[in-house]
């Protein structure tokens, strides 16, 4: 059972898209797994043949439980299923130092709990969850029923991730105001020549600027794992998308730094549509390297975000609003102004570096034609 998020401890196999004997290649969608948040299409990461389907539709299994055997091309048949489907390897259990110490203090057996960190690493919150699960309920406590409705499940998943974030991540916040007049004028001219299907929204321009900015400030793009920063070579911004039934998904647009503005706009439209119709893929759920939240549509001026662990930063955008702005020669003018914020993990970066990122972002938006 793949881990499809820092907050996921178990999942339900909804359906297989393959049968025994089927050839599969990297990127194929082989199954659909139900999580607290949504049904997710599970991709495979290697090429080979389906040897055995262990789990059956309807099975609810802890993360890390093998659900299939895949004969990987060029290797002897083995129960090792590719990467995200892989069971925990025999021998030393992969766990962060903090998780090991906590497990010892709380008497939790690391062999018996699933890891929800990258590649199944057991992290501190996994141990805390396991300890809570085995502790008897205090006398007189009224146990609430487990969430069964999808929205309740999603609320629970968000609660777990956000509580972990506030517990573990020392956030710092920075904000800056960006004059968007050049960017919006450029976009207006750009869109005038295009059919409605190919027009670009300001949100796509902002996301492109973030992706380019992160190439210059890679410390904000990656993960805090095993007490150290691990920057990601790919910029995979997770886009916070509110769902119509309530709740939130943060699917990632993969390798955004390599995409043009038009490609990013198309990717955004595609991922928003699929998020809202429950057709996201596992890589889009697990490979986000930073989160971007845009609440401008709702009139919000400034976004103070909560970082999605183990990421180390979140960029927030508010509404582009007409504001008084000091123009040239000491004159005061009115400009469309955007408040951009950065919530960042102080273990990974300092305010100085965060400020440089916002400065770079502003600079990129003053030259939109180069994005």
């Amino acid at each position, binding site marked *: 059972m793949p881990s499809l998020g820092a907050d996921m401890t178990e999942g339900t196999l909804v359906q297989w898209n393959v049968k025994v004997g089927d050839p599969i290649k990297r990127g194929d969608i082989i199954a659909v797994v139900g999580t607290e948040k949504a049904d997710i299409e599970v991709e495979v990461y290697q090429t080979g043949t389906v040897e055995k389907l262990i789990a059956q539709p309807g099975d609810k299994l802890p993360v890390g439980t093998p659900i299939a055997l895949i004969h990987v091309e060029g290797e002897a048949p083995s129960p090792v299923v590719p990467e995200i489907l892989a069971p925990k390897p025999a021998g030393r259990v992969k766990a962060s130092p903090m998780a090991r110490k906590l497990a010892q203090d709380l008497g939790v057996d690391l062999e018996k709990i699933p890891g929800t960190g990258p590649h199944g690493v057991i992290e501190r919150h996994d141990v805390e969850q396991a300890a809570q699960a085995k502790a008897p309920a205090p006398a007189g406590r009224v146990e609430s029923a487990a969430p069964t409705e999808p929205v309740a499940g999603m609320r629970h998943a968000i609660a777990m991730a956000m509580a972990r974030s506030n517990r573990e991540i020392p956030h710092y916040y920075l904000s800056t105001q960006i004059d968007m007049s050049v960017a919006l004028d450029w976009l*207006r001219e750009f*869109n*005038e020549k295009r059919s*409605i*299907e190919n*027009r670009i*929204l*300001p*949100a796509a321009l902002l996301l492109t600027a973030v992706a380019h900015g992160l190439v210059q400030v890679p410390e904000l793009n990656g993960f805090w794992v095993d007490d150290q920063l691990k920057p990601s070579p790919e910029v995979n911004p997770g886009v916070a998308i*509110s769902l*119509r*039934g309530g709740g939130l998904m943060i699917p990632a647009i993969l390798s955004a730094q390599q995409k043009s503005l038009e490609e990013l706009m198309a990717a*955004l*439209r595609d991922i*928003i*549509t699929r998020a809202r119709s429950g057709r996201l893929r596992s890589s889009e759920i697990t490979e986000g390297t930073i989160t971007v939240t845009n609440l401008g*549509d709702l009139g919000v001026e400034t976004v103070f975000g909560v970082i999605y662990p183990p990421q180390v930063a979140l960029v927030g955008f508010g509404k582009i609003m007409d504001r008084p702005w000091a123009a040239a020669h000491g004159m005061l003018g009115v400009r469309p102004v955007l408040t951009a914020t950065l919530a960042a993990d102080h273990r990974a970066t300092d305010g100085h570096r965060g400020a440089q990122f916002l400065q770079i972002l502003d600079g990129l938006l003053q030259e939109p034609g180069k994005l």
Partner: protein
Amino acid sequence: MTESEIQTAIFDGLRKIAPETDPRQLRPTENLREALDIDSFDFLNFLIGLHQRLGVEIPEADYGRLTTLAALIQYLSPKLTGGSAKVS
């Protein structure tokens, strides 16, 4: 195309992006995006749907005018019927 047919196209488009809502409950002058909680991406998808179904060009400069059901019908009617329409 009649006003009623234009309205049907609008309702169908809104149902596609906000399937849990009933656009027939909208008041003519109510802000569509606020009432149905439609973000800028879904609003663009809605306009693209109208363009594809009705064959009407909708320049970006006009987006800001299309805030209510009444405004939408008033905007689309002359392009589809050659006349203006009133929404009751």
